[in-house]
């Protein structure tokens, strides 16, 4: 799996540089969005890099290579799902690095805060988005599913903003949720967030694998 993930990054050496530039730009332009700025930046770059790798597979017709190698299809699909978290981690590291540089150089610019909540939001948004879009890619390929995935991307962003606004308008509900989680231990809170995300992700993986096993090249 390591080699499949490493390949996804290697084929995008230039895109990684572009991703760094994008993150600098997002850090400055999304500064007014608070922690949502971090989640949105990471989601956008994850979208860019994850689908960049799929685009490269399709452009090079490399599925023929991957399937001809002695490697199980389940591993090829699993590597794509795991690579999302590698890319999210890498992106978070880059954002943190950009913030450190800005702080170190004492540049007179505002950036969104780098918080644990923002990072968790990045992971959640990327998980949800990739869980929705990967089955389409494994069934139809990157090019054919590109438009639908593009729409899904904006729906994920729009949906996240809608929920953030909705929560802000319903302060009472937020208070109740806060109280609910305050009564739980850290482990319980984490489990309540991670379990549904994991279930969605695993279901998405099973669907993708089923599509990929039936796909013909």
């Amino acid at each position: 799996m390591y080699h499949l993930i490493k390949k996804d990054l290697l084929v995008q050496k230039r895109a990684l540089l572009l991703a760094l530039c994008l993150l600098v730009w997002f850090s400055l332009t999304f500064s007014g969005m608070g922690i949502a700025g971090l989640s949105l930046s990471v989601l956008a770059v994850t979208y860019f890099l994850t689908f960049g790798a799929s685009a490269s597979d399709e452009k090079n017709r490399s599925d023929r290579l991957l399937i001809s190698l002695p490697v199980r299809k389940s591993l090829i699909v699993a590597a794509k799902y795991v690579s999302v978290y590698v890319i999210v981690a890498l992106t978070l590291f880059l954002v943190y690095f950009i913030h450190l540089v800005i702080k170190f150089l004492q540049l007179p610019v505002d950036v969104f805060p780098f918080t644990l909540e923002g990072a968790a939001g990045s992971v959640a948004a990327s998980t949800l988005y990739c869980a929705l879009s990967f089955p389409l890619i494994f069934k139809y390929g990157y090019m054919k599913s590109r438009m639908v995935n593009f729409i899904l991307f904006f729906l994920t962003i729009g949906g996240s903003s809608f929920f953030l606004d909705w929560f802000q308008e319903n302060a009472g509900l937020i208070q109740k949720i806060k109280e609910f989680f305050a009564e739980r231990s850290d482990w319980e809170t984490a489990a309540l967030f991670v379990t549904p995300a994991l279930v969605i992700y695993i279901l998405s993986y099973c669907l993708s694998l089923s599509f990929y096993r039936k796909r013909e090249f």
Partner: protein
Amino acid sequence: MDKIVEITGLSKHYKGFSLKNISFSLERGYIMGFIGPNGAGKSTTIKLMMNLMKKDGGQIKLFGLDHEKDEIAVKERIGFVYDENCFYDELTVEEMKNFIRPFYRRWDEAAFRRYVREFGLPLNKQIKRLSKGMKMKFALAAALSHHAELLIMDEPTSGLDPLVRNELLDILRTLMEDGDKSVFFSTHITSDLDKIADYITLIHEGEILLSTTKEELLEEYCIVKGGKNLDLSACRELFIGLEESRYGIAGLARNKGDVIKRLGGSAVIEKPTLEDILLFFTSRSDSHVSSH
């Protein structure tokens, strides 16, 4: 004998094309030329063998193992060269090799380095900057560096200049010297197979028309040529195809011995090329004959 490839009753149907219960086999140590016109079913057969497509029926056994149940064990022992590049354009030759290597337990880095030297492959050049011939050589180096016992090649010479094609044939000839490897070589450029093939399997419109040794094929069939008034009534049923032109008659016939006996000295009998066999078998209604 040790059968490396054994295909029985293989079928696949999709819109506009059907592979109809095809069967053939290849023994260890031989090169099989898989010939047929474009769209005959050559690539479909190879895709089915490599699990790039799902078969509708039949059985594919490679090294005596089922190609689906024992997929990983089978693919460890196969080297593949496809008609089009399937490597990542963005990677260098070295990076691409580093990606492929970990998947093969029997990868031999020294062998790869040797092939790189022999083929003159530039390790630090991106795949997209390689010529078509170089890409094919890289595919071949990768296929040979894990000691593949069966090389599956889908139109490897298409689009290559005669010099590179000849080089590939030389490589294959050298490769076959140890008698342990087998090559399944699909092509519509039959002159390549005239030089190296031991077996010929001819496919047309999804059906296997013949599968036999090249020697038998060239001994069994003959090209018959004669003037416009050549009387073929004594052996017309032996003809696979006939072409009439303003200069005379030419055709491909089976049972060479019979044809000679029946026509006597009234016709010129010549040894056919694989191209003649391919053309006459696949275009019976409006037959052609190659220039001799």
